[in-house]
């Protein structure tokens, strides 16, 4: 452009105060750090988050409606699909609820096998958390390490039930099959192998200055807000409450095992990470104790195919890797449940995200979201 000297040229605004304006950013539904299909509508002032509105429901399958249309046995495979990263625990929750409703005695060996599988799956789930969380923060190595270890757990599950993702291993009254030859020794080997690996992740991340800068003091969730939003699992323990359903309302065989409940101090992203790291060690301890004490005997109570629990209702909950997973079942005495309400941890934990994220920067949101370890099929159901 040629400027004629007689034309007037406006000088640049130099040191003048610039006008700022809030604007809306749409994050998702397809965003690598949402680990699924979740949309966040963010109101931003520059880089700072002013308001977060989660928009969910992209994976809604109305599993609760499906449950009313299936028998108690048939519904088992749908529980796998509520939380596909920890489907052993999702199976377990359904079993515990139905058995409580019908007052079914589960053989001791089955309870031990359930505990072993649930705890192995908890480790696998926390490894997936570690992998995705670290890659969200830009650390690629722990991602590869964590999936390497998870592979061994998945191999153990494949050995037992033939599946690598949606295991569908548990049954009402027990488990579907006994563990194969060699499972006990392989799992013991795995536990021995895991402890130094967890130390290795900690050596990479826990005191890493970049990691600390991204997580310490970020996304603080205070305890009253956590309880109000019914947040559970590692986020609740990260906020400082020593509460674990395995310990405080024991189900299955958990009262027989010795383990600690790790808690955080500040309720920030780092605390939630640290709680999960410690839980992996504790879960491995439970698995070792359960393998040592594994009793002989039946693996399944005798439950008829046309299983009809008595009329009534039940609210039963378990500690899944993401927090409290509960079923509220109303039975009318037929083979199908009259009403099933599925309470999942992610649904409640995600609700607290706006409180945790507002006031922080958009890059921190990825870390906060990752530290909640949300799984979207569980939110939408």
């Amino acid at each position, binding site marked *: 452009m040629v400027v004629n000297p007689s034309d007037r040229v406006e000088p640049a605004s130099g040191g003048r105060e610039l006008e700022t304006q809030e604007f809306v950013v749409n994050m998702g539904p397809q965003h690598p750090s949402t680990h699924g299909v979740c949309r966040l509508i963010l109101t931003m002032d520059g880089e700072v988050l002013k308001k977060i509105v989660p928009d*969910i*429901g992209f994976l*809604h399958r*109305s599993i*609760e*409606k499906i449950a*009313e*249309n*299936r*028998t108690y046995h048939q519904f088992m495979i749908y529980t796998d699909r509520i939380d596909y990263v920890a489907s052993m625990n999702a199976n377990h929750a359904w079993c515990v609820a139905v058995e*409580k*409703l019908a007052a079914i005695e589960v053989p001791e060996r089955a309870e031990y096998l359930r505990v072993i599988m649930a705890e192995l799956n908890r480790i696998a789930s926390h490894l997936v958390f570690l992998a995705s969380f670290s890659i969200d923060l830009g650390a690629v190595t722990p991602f590869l390490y964590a999936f390497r270890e998870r592979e061994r757990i998945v191999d153990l599950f494949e050995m037992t039930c033939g599946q690598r993702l949606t295991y569908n291993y548990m049954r009402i009254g027990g488990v579907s099959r006994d563990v194969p030859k060699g499972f006990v020794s392989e799992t013991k080997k795995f536990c021995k192998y895991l402890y130094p690996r967890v130390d290795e992740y900690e050596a990479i991340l826990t005191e890493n200055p970049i990691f600390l800068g991204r997580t310490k003091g970020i996304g603080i969730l205070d305890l009253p*807000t956590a*309880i*109000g*939003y*019914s947040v*559970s699992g590692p986020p609740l323990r990260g906020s400082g*409450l020593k*509460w674990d359903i395995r310990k*405080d309302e024991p189900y299955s065989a958990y009262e027989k095992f010795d383990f600690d409940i790790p808690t955080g101090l500040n309720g920030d992203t780092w605390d939630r990470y640290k709680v999960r790291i410690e839980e992996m060690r504790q879960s491995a301890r439970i698995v070792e104790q359960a393998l040592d004490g594994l009793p002989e005997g039946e693996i399944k109570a005798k439950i008829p*195919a*046309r299983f009809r629990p008595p009329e*009534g*209702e*039940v*609210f*039963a*909950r378990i500690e899944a890797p993401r927090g*409290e997973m*509960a079923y*509220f079942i*109303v039975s009318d005495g*037929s*083979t*199908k449940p009259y*009403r099933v*309400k599925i*309470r999942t941890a992610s*649904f*409640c934990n995600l*609700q607290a995200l706006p409180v945790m994220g507002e006031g922080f920067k958009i890059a921190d949101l990825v870390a906060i979201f990752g530290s909640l370890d949300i799984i979207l099929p569980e939110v*939408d159901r």
Partner: protein
Amino acid sequence: MTPEELTSKIKTTLPDKVEELPAVTGIPAFKVRPEHLEEVCRILFSDPDLHFDNLPCLGGIDYPETNEIGVVYCLFSFARRHHLNLRVMMPRENPEVITVSEFWLAADWFERETAELFGIKFKDHPDPRPLLLIEEWDEGYPMRKDWEGKDFIRMPEVGQEK
């Protein structure tokens, strides 16, 4: 507090406001009329002995035979370690009940979900938008027992298949 102590405590604290239901699996259960819900919840939430600080679960339930629709509140107290189930029943035409999100923040999304799936209106809800269904959903309330959808087939009772 044991479930029995809790039951008697609630009955003495809230006479005429609650109606006892059979406690099937060890958790005391009460029925509350919609107009008393706010007062009952306020006392359950603030009474130092009851101290229900947590709402782990809330869901709707539909009984077309008796023309009733309801909301079930599963309450828990971290401070006192006890459970309670509350139930509010309303007629199926224009059911309306007050929101409890004033006491338990978690009720916000639970009630939004129940509102769109069951067609129960929650009065004074802070954010009454739909939660799970698509924005242009106009096929009624899917969780109601008499809902008919185009791909929805009701399975027969086991043992009575043709």
